[in-house]
């Protein structure tokens, strides 16, 4: 199968949607003339014109607010928030409007928007341009929260988001944009709420989110050379969360480590850990351990940021700590 980068896979899904569905349009900062901060939408303005690839002023509230209005009128907007750190500015639109309107109108109104955003941890972008904040949103009923980790998942999940009738928060990872992987040319979609076992194993389950899937696979490779068999599970969507696949894996291995770029306190890992305890307590042979970001603002210094970030070695350490006395 041909290989695409994560960025190319997203770009392909967006472009196909623009070609196929006249109701689809993109809206965001610098997505048109500049081609997108990460060049995902480069050339789209020329190809599809300013009606469908709309540059906006620097106002996230306006971007999502306009998208919601267009969706209510029957369009399929794909809004882009350049950095996840800017989402607090449109929190009202996202959490109080987009997520609630369908419920509050008794199902008469729908807000099928997609809000694409990305997090840039590991690029020395500083405390306000590096944050990974999915836990803020998977707690909001009415929003779907999607976290692709591979080019294949990126295209399949975006295609699924295009079919959804509810608001979807689609969170990309800028460190993954250059990661390559097989992507079918044909259209396919990956259902939400279906975790993917990225690698099968027997001794310990690692539930890894987004970028950490790759760190987990690298850690698994190293540990496997030392005789420890690691299963790596990628939930792919955290709202809805496929706890069944995780629990089945824990029933097999008895041990689980959760790997996430999230802050440890109140992060996705905390929720997954609690769900495992509720569903598989008697199968646990070791405490559930989390490898996450510390509870401090992300340092600007590249050296400090590297220390701050969860990675393969921290994951190996955590796994070893639940095995060795």
């Amino acid at each position, binding site marked *: 199968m041909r290989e695409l980068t994560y960025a190319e896979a997203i770009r392909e899904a967006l472009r196909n949607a623009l070609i196929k569905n006249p109701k689809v349009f993109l809206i965001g900062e610098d997505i048109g003339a500049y081609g997108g901060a990460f060049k995902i939408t480069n050339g789209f303005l020329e190809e599809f014109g300013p009606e469908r690839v709309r540059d906006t002023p620097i106002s996230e509230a306006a971007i999502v607010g306009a998208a919601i209005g267009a969706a209510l009128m029957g369009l399929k907007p794909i809004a882009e928030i350049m950095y996840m750190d800017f989402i607090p500015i449109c929190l009202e639109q996202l959490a109080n409007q987009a997520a609630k309107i369908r419920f509050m109108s008794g199902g008469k109104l729908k807000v099928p928007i997609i809000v694409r955003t990305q997090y840039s941890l590991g690029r020395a972008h500083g405390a306000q341009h590096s944050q990974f904040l999915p836990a803020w949103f998977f707690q909001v009923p009415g929003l779907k929260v999607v976290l692709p980790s591979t080019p294949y998942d990126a295209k399949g999940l975006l295609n699924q988001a295009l079919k959804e009738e509810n608001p979807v928060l689609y969170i990309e990872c800028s460190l993954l944009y250059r990661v390559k992987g097989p992507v079918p040319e044909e259209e396919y979609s990956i259902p939400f709420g279906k975790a993917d076992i990225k690698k099968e194993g027997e001794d310990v389950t690692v539930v890894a989110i987004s970028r950490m899937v790759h760190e987990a696979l690298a850690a698994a490779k190293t540990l496997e050379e030392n005789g420890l068999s690691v299963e790596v599970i990628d939930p792919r969507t955290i709202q809805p969360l496929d706890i069944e696949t995780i629990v089945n894996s824990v029933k097999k291995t008895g041990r689980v480590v959760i790997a996430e770029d999230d802050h440890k306190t109140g992060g996705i890992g905390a929720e997954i850990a609690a769900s495992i305890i509720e569903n598989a307590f008697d*199968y646990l042979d070791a405490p559930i351990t989390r490898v996450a970001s510390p509870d401090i603002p992300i340092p600007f210094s590249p050296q400090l940021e590297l220390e701050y970030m969860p990675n393969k070695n921290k994951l190996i350490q955590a796994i070893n700590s639940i*095995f060795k006395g």
Partner: protein
Amino acid sequence: MHKIIIPRFDPAMKTGRIIKWLKSEGETVNKGEPLLIVEGEKTVFEVEAPANGILKKILYQAGSEVEVLKPIALIGEANEPIPQELIEEIEEKVKSEIKAEIIEKPKIEKPFIKTVERVKASPLAKKLAEEYGINIEEIKGTGPGGRITKEDVLNAIKKASLKPTFAEASISGLKPIPIAKTIPLSRIRKTIAERLVYSLHKAASTTIITSVNLENLLKYREEIKSSLSEVSLTAFIVKATAKALEAHPIFNSTLNEEEIKIFEDINIALAIHTEDGLVTPVIKNANKKSIIEISNEIKELTNKAFQRKLSIDELTGGTFTITNLGAYDVELFIPIINPPQTGILGVGKIEKKPIVINDQILIKPTVALTLVFDHRVVDGVPAVKFLQEIKHFLEDPKELN
């Protein structure tokens, strides 16, 4: 109001386990209708409703192990109140259950409330230890911080199952014998084990052996075969033994503390090997039945045994046991007394052998009979006489009918 009790299926049975209730509280039941399924020591049985009425109250749920003769449910009329004494009985039971819970709880929680030396164990390790009945406090944890893990419990289980074998008791320095597979005892295996060890420890088992010339019997069997269906050799041996027991009733008895109790009926239990294990269905009043009747009954019981369909009635009440390994090419063997009985007769295979009759060596079909009896009950010479009586009937089978 009728009480339903756990019936005693077998003299040795102490408890029964309720497998399943077939009726629920408030349901109408008819006399004779199956109410529940109970597992006795050797087989699973249905307990029938003793009367028509409504199943008013179930006292023990499925899974409960209940002493025999204890009430487990009540049947009554729709508006019939539960009598006061039964209410008290139920309350007594509930109280004792609560008490049992209180007594048991700290035992389970012990590892958790100990402040000085808390036992650290993973949930999986605790669950496994509980399932295998292993005291988690005796296990040494090798996990982080001395935590007991699944592996530690599995090692302890492995060790525990080694204990009774020579492997564990071996002279130090010798490697333990590796175990290929550990098989938990089934209920029937457990019963067999308990009863036979009891027999070995309690009875003063003594063995005498004799050889029987079967020439006449085989001829006689051919004669009656032509007129009727085939008759098994075992049927002859059952009948001969039953007749001999009439004349030697001391072997049809049980020793109970300081008394020997002679049974009124002569009921011959017959050892039958099935996939599940050994069962011993009973031919009641064998001394009063014809050989043909006995032979047919043996066929029927054997079929039922293979299909696991023997009833309580067919499995209980034996007063003397016969075990025949002739079909398995065994010359002679020494069986073990089936408690609480006093004797057992082992039958080998029919074999042509040179025997001396009137100073002439002749080849005759013979069979070896082994009588094992409890010497506490009776001495050697009477045992010899009893065995000779059986031999006499087999060598002169016309006297049997």
